[in-house]
């Protein structure tokens, strides 16, 4: 059992670009769900629309990468408006239904054969990261030698991603300490009470949906850049649920909740994967083949992860950063 390799690679994942992308997605969900109480189950849709805007602008139409990024973020905002207009006046459940459906519609449409020449069907698009990788100042592996290192492009992607995370955290912090953020939190607690105090609840919910959606769009763009490719499978429903898991592990309605959540989630997921694959490898494995073989081991990480999540929700449902006192107030 090579513990050093396991820990090093787990750390590489926990701090890596994928973790940072999910962190961005979870920050968007935090604005929606954590602060405003909006159940957005279609964060993958926001990610897809922005990610595809960038990659198709460059790869299909040969336009500027930066223009594509701006259009991507704008289209995430437009998607938020489109989803919000019919549903935000209704009960919270309707937004959940509409967003999860919209995300699937977007994914299926983008991957369809009809639009093959624009979006590349199920194979997706490649070769759109030129402008981004040209800015990469690194040429060797970066990191702490002997502990954890990344390939130069990966490090560049993760650096930009974490900087964006820092920026988004700063914005969320600045917004949520303000009276504006207080209205959002009040809406989460009781919409009618807020309405009776003269606040336009609908407008606030819309603003929240747009801001969280744009942050989700940012995650989509970074996801495409980090993979140097894009295809519809990046934006399946489980992407949204991973982002929710990240949010809940860290603690909803806490500025740094998604950051802690994503590091823990990806570290653990990678750690479990490596541990079980090593424990079942070789001629005399740690875990006898009668119990588990190496093919079965790859699924173990999700089983253990699921169990851990259940235990977390039972014994610490407020997440790592959550406030214990809030839980005492279950009754609304």
């Amino acid at each position, binding site marked *: 059992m090579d513990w050093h390799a396991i820990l090093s690679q787990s750390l590489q994942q926990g701090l890596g670009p994928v973790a940072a992308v999910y962190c961005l997605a979870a920050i968007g969900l935090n604005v929606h769900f954590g602060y405003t109480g909006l159940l957005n189950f279609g964060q993958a849709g926001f990610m897809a629309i922005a990610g595809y805007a960038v990659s198709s602008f460059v790869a299909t139409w040969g336009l500027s990468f930066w223009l594509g990024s701006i259009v991507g973020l704008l289209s995430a905002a437009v998607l938020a408006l489109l989803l919000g207009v019919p549903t935000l006046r209704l009960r919270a459940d309707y937004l959940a239904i509409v967003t999860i459906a919209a995300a699937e519609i977007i994914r299926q449409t983008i991957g369809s054969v009809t639009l093959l020449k624009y979006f590349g069907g199920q194979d997706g698009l490649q070769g759109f990261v030129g402008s981004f990788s040209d800015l990469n100042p690194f040429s060797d592996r970066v990191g702490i030698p002997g502990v954890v290192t990344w390939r130069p492009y990966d490090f560049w992607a993760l650096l930009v991603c974490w900087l964006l995370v820092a920026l988004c955290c700063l914005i969320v912090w600045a917004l949520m300490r303000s009276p*504006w953020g207080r209205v959002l939190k*009040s809406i989460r607690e009781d919409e009618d009470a807020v309405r009776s105090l003269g606040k336009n609840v609908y407008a606030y919910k819309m603003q929240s949906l747009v801001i969280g959606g744009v942050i989700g769009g940012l995650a989509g763009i970074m996801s495409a850049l980090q993979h140097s490719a894009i295809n519809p499978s990046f934006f399946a429903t489980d992407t949204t649920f991973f982002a929710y898991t990240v949010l809940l592990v860290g603690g909803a309605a806490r500025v740094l909740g998604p950051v802690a959540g994503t590091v823990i989630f990806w570290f653990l997921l990678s750690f479990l994967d490596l541990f079980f694959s090593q424990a079942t490898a070789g001629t005399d494995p740690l875990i006898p083949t009668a119990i588990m073989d190496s093919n079965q081991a790859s699924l173990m990480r999700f089983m253990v992860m699921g169990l851990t999540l259940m235990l977390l929700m039972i014994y610490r449902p407020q997440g790592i950063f959550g406030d214990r006192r809030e839980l005492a107030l279950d009754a609304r």
Partner: protein
Amino acid sequence: MPAESSSTVDVSAARAALREVPHEPGAKKPDPVVVAHQVRRTFGGLTAVDVDHVEIQRGVITGLIGPNGAGKTTFFNLLTGFDRPDQGDWSFNGTSLKGVPAYRVSRMGMVRTFQLTKVLSRLTVLENMRVGATGQRGESLLRAMFAPFWRGQEQSNTERADALLERFLLIKKREDFAGSLSGGQRKLLEMARALMADPELVMLDEPMAGVNPALKQSLLGHVKSLRDEGRTVLFVEHDMDMVRDISDWVIVMAQGKVIAEGPPDSVMGDQRVIDAYLGSHHDQDLSEEMEEEILAEAQAEIGDNGTPDTVGVEGEQRV
């Protein structure tokens, strides 16, 4: 604003003006703040509210009473924009409120509380109060990110909130989550929060529901103090002691209609009100003759198929 103009509003004058008003449903008031005309709301086949005409006098406490299911809370929701009527018009200070959304009604100076108290559980008591303040600069998205835009206003709102918390005896709970308050304290908080908006008309939906008797007296005092600082109060209540004690004028609803109006004493003795609450035979002993009489009446109705008000029941039996 009403709080400052308290010296100019004379409660006794407003009460004196009410003395001239006839004790009839829909009576015209000398200085109405709210006027509702032919407001009707149906839920399927049920007519929950069917108010022909009602006016609320400015500067006094008006009680809205009636048996369960009389449509009081529905009428409240209609007036405050939380529900839309099928027809009718209603106005606040002469401005029609038809189609005006609830938040704008509140901004006009007509702030309500709820029968099932709505405190913001996972916010502190102080934050609950601050949300109530109107015209906050920091509530617009662009300015929210930059504290210097709103810090000064926040400071003055906090001072006002503290003063109100002091008055409503909640100052010790300032930093606690609102969800940890008792039922009575929540009622107090909701009332105090409504005052943060400095409303002209305070609408209280069953302020005494679920409040222990000891706290009741202090709540009564608080409601009276609202009137004394120049606000108009309209409240829905079941508690007759409260109605008798503090209201200057009482409106009685039953089955969606306003059936009586007047000062508390005259309303309590009104035959229509007693009938609505207790049924029209409540003061007669059920003697043998009475029993026979009722039986005969009932049999006559069953025998007479054409009677319109029994058609429904009989129709079912015949089929």
